[in-house]
């Protein structure tokens, strides 16, 4: 028997060569990188003296960006797995309210309230996923239903139990709680104190905290955001499970035939999204000490927008966690930056829409270069 046919020619005369640099550049997060550079350049030029880049200013937009990042990581992995979740915003409201009800109304220890809330919310995420898988309905519809259901309960429960729509007093309850500190505290306080003493960052001038540095630590929110981004990125790009996420979103049928446990992957991603939403809610509740029925409104869109700005494909199978994190950063910086730059606040939405459009068009162009798709 002869060997197989002669090798096909290594190059095709009908295709022009793509330069090495260009090839190195085309990756999902390129759009996000360009956007970040653009946005920072813009604000460095227009809002440098507004305090946006003082220690306090940086902390401000970092915190806002970190918030977006936490939910964007979940939304990103879920979107790459081919689904999305419109109930994220309602889940945030619901999770916060549950913690408040368990800890304040029912008087449970805060760690217990947090744990049971995580269990509850992750189960709801699993339920979302289960319904999507079993009925084959688009996740848009299923999670839209849960958007209403969860928000309904978030308003109804405190209304019925406590006759209010905001439950406060969680800070007092959380005093000294080991788990609460993981969500509400700050780290590196010593470092910042030292920086303040050394005159490297500003200190308060008067009041009860005179002499303390204006930034007295990194909020746990930011730590969570960074941790989730790293975990998400490693999971997606470095593990076999990550490959399954791509496969499940790229073509569920093909993946299933190749032995990828697609249903499990999708349900786990719904659970992870719910987990991220609950982390968001817990940090918020622990920082602010109260839970409100209107928390998290429209956050589902913000998460999706960050992910899409970061280069992921709405239809699944393509995207990057780093991209989503950059998307969240852009979003946060623009949102706070417009305030710093003193732009009329009602125009904020207009900017948001325009940036969204611009970013996705840029990303589409990049993706077409990668895949050769037309």
């Amino acid at each position, binding site marked *: 028997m002869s060997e197989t046919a002669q090798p096909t020619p290594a190059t095709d005369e009908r295709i022009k060569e793509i330069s090495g640099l260009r090839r190195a550049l085309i990756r999902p997060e390129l759009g996000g990188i360009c956007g970040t550079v653009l946005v920072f350049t813009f604000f460095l030029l227009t809002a440098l003296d507004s305090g946006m880049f003082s220690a306090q200013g940086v902390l401000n937009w970092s915190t806002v960006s970190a918030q977006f990042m936490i939910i964007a990581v979940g939304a990103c992995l879920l979107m790459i797995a081919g689904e999305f979740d419109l109930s994220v915003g309602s889940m945030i409201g619901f999770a916060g309210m549950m913690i408040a009800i368990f800890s304040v109304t029912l008087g449970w220890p805060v760690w217990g309230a947090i744990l049971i809330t995580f269990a509850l919310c992750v189960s709801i995420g699993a339920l979302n996923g289960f319904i999507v898988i079993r009925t084959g309905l688009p996740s848009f519809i299923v999670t839209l239903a849960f958007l209403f259901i969860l928000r309904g309960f978030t308003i109804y429960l405190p209304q019925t139990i406590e006759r209010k729509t*905001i439950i406060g007093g969680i800070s007092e309850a959380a005093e000294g709680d080991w788990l609460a500190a993981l969500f509400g505290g700050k780290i590196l306080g010593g470092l910042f104190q030292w920086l303040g003493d050394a005159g490297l960052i500003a200190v308060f*001038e008067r009041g009860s905290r005179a002499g303390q540095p204006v930034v007295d630590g990194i909020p746990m929110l930011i730590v969570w955001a960074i941790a989730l981004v790293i975990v998400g990125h490693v999971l997606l790009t470095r593990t076999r499970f990550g490959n399954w996420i791509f496969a499940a979103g790229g073509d569920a049928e093909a993946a299933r035939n190749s032995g990828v446990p697609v249903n499990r992957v999708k349900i786990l991603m719904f659970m992870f999204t719910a987990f991220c939403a609950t982390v968001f809610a817990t940090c918020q509740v622990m920082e*602010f000490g*109260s839970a409100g029925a209107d928390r998290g*409104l429209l956050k589902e869109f913000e998460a999706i927008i960050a992910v899409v700005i970061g280069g992921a494909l709405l239809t699944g199978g393509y995207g990057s966690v780093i991209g989503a994190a950059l998307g969240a950063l852009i979003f946060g910086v623009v949102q706070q930056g417009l305030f710093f730059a003193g732009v009329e606040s009602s125009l904020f939405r207009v900017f948001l829409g325009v940036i969204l459009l611009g970013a996705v068009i840029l990303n589409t162009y990049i993706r077409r270069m990668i895949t050769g798709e037309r």
Partner: protein
Amino acid sequence: DGHGDLNYVLVSHAPDSDSWWNTIKNGIALAGEQMGVEVEYRNPPTGDLADMARIIEQAAASGPDGIITTLSDFDVLRGPIEDAVASGVDVIIMNSGTPEQAREVGALMYVGQPEYDAGLAAGQRAAGDGIASFLCVNHYISSPSSTERCQGFADGLGVELGNQMIDSGQDPAEIKNRVLAYLNANPETDAILTLGPTSADPTLLALDENGMAGDIYFGTFDLGENIVEGIKAGTIQWGIDQQPFLQAYLPVVVLANYHRYGVLPGNNINSGPGFVTVDGLTLVEEYAGEYR
């Protein structure tokens, strides 16, 4: 930047489509012009109070001379406000919160109308008019202050709030038809309380349509063009005016004078509740929705 040597920021908790805050914007614009200071208006686009906390932090970071803010959730906003005070920014609390809370966070003063008290006063007034049951049309159910108004009104009447408060949503047709549906199902209702133009305007039309206009006892919070018309026509018995204009205007004036000349009023200022009735409506009418 700007024409003034002093920079102030007003932070509200309202989503940016809420019409009531418009008067506030006009109030600070006028005060800014008259005092020769720069005043910016900031709000969380969706009305999310956690976002509002970030905006206060942001405002503090941009180093203004003063911040005027609402205190719609003490727990959420206390931290950022205290930080702002500590970093040398003077703060005045307006609109929501209580004088006690304002003192606690280290604000200079409080200008506004305690919501529960306003509701209570209205309830007591209605009780005096012989009312025993009511419908509270809540178009902003997730905001605690709107619930407090209804609760205060119920307590003023001395009745249980219960199902008498409905979540009406913000679509005028839905508000109108929900009111109609409620009145249809509960024809024995004595009074209606609406919480602002958003719910009052469609409710007026609803009463027009089912013929109860003028027949049912109708009170409302906050003023607007149609509410003023309603008061004039006798459909609405009274409107509780918390005078948003003052809530915006006075803090700016106070801050500017404090920063320039070191003078400060010795007390908090209650801008409301003032009951607007059919007497003395002309000025109200002219400026409703703009300065009233």
